[in-house]
């Protein structure tokens, strides 16, 4: 925008460009763990409840360097991923249907809330009885945990999609699939993604609880083992790893959401 012949001064300089603001966001995001680490270092001398960050990070590094972390990571990682995918794949279409039909919502909403609240600790012995100890039981446990938030968020999000857009879709003769993928899901995406992200994060804790409960391998088992002998640096190293994995997964989902919305 330049000064024109009318002699009107140009407005102030334009705002930061898209790439610059994305860059700023990345810096801010990166600053969060750095700041957390700094707090950890600052508070470390005051309590022996928490190990020093140096020890913890050293252990984490050791876990990879010495290789003892891989079997646990593989076991937990596969349960988390497969269970999350399974839970989402089941919950998403059901949530979609519930969101599209008031009748289904009215029928199932209270039932879902009820079954959702059944303590997981009870569920796991049942799963063990059905599947035995191993990936299947753990995966199912994860799937059930991821199922509910995805179902409820999807239903709510789809229900909130505005009528005029549905009308547009119908008038264009969109197939059910097109209506879902090109109108309802993009419109509902932010709220659906809340459920999916919660489901994904919960998947980790579900896998870990399952492993605390009965497991042959996994990060949960390693946590309980480290805790039992009060090897806090090792325990914190594993907890850190879990959160890191969840964070990276969340960023991936975030990115996917952006793609989804762009259609």
């Amino acid at each position, binding site marked *: 925008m330049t000064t024109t012949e009318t002699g009107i001064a140009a407005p102030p300089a334009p705002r930061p460009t898209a790439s610059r603001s994305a860059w700023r966001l990345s810096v801010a995001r990166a600053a969060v763990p750095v700041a957390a680490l700094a707090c950890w270092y600052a508070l470390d001398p005051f309590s022996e409840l928490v190990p020093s960050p140096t020890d913890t990070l050293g252990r984490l590094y050791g876990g990879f360097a010495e290789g003892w972390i891989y079997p646990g990571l593989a076991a937990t990682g596969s349960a988390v991923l497969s269970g999350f995918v399974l839970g989402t794949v089941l919950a998403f279409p059901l949530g979609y249907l519930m969101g599209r039909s008031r009748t289904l919502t009215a029928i199932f909403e209270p039932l879902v809330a009820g079954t959702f609240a059944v303590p997981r600790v009870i569920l796991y012995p049942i799963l063990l009885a059905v599947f035995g100890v191993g990936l299947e039981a753990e995966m199912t446990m994860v799937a059930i945990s991821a199922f509910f938030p995805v179902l409820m968020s999807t239903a709510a999000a789809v229900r909130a999609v505005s009528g*005029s*857009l549905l*009308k*547009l*879709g*119908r*008038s*264009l*003769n*969109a197939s059910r699939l*097109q209506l879902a993928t*090109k*109108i309802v899901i*993009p*419109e509902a*995406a932010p709220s659906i993604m809340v459920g999916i992200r919660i489901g994904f994060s919960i998947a980790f804790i579900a896998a870990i609880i399952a492993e605390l409960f009965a497991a042959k391998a996994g990060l949960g088992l390693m946590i309980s083992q480290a805790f039992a002998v009060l090897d806090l640096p090792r325990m914190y190293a594993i907890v850190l790893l879990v959160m890191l994995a969840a964070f990276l997964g969340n960023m991936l989902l975030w990115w996917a959401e952006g793609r989804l*919305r*762009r*259609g």
Partner: protein
Amino acid sequence: MRVSESTGQQLREADGHGVGLGVRLDDVCVVYATKDGEGVEAVRSAEGHIADGRFVSLIGPSGCGKSTLLDVVGGLRTPVRGGVSIDGEPVTGPRRDTAMVFQEDSTLHWRTVLSNVAFGLEIAGVGRKEREAAARDMINLVGLKGFEHRHPRELSGGMKQRVAIARALLLDPRILLMDEPFGALDQQTRMFIGRELLRVWDETRKSVLFVTHDIQEAVYLSDEVWIMSARPSHIMEKIVVDLDRPRGPETLTSLRFHELTSQVWELLRAESEKVLDASGELTA
């Protein structure tokens, strides 16, 4: 249904086209269910025939059921009685050869202008390159060049409306249903887009049902102007517009044009007053 005699010419239903062709409204009655259980009788009985390739404007007081009727013709709403048939086939749902422009904002706010305009073709399965090239032309036509990559949030009210018009026109449907498409446009832009619409219509001979509040626009564009009564509504009067085509600026100044608009205006005024009268507040 009484054909307005003052048109000086009987309504020739077929008007050079096949008798069975076109859109036929048969005793359409729409009642909205309301929570108090009473229901709102939006349209009591609408009858009419849009012969193939004819341009019909629908005009009537606010809240009389025009949008409702358009929904019925578009297959989006099932009447409680009566029905619509197109080329003899009853309308049971949306059809591929019908395109609609809605009264409310119907832009997809997560898509750019370009991909909003191309959306109809995308749904119809046209490839990206092809549909985007076509969409660009249409965007130019409605004066949105330079805004291809903006999102609806960054557009003014009139610009969003033009996006919706472009989307419908791009589909090149046989039947075009438009609900106050030019409502938020300035007079010059609406005339320009109106003329473009006429040109497209003339080339492709669509049947058009066009809701507007602008009487001059209705008369200028149409073969027939249908006037809807106040709610519970029916189509009260059908005025055949016997102005020569192609129409141009001289049409607007012709005596016949003036006669027709006055006629529509008189009919309409009485109806609108009913609504306002009902409020018991009308100051003479």
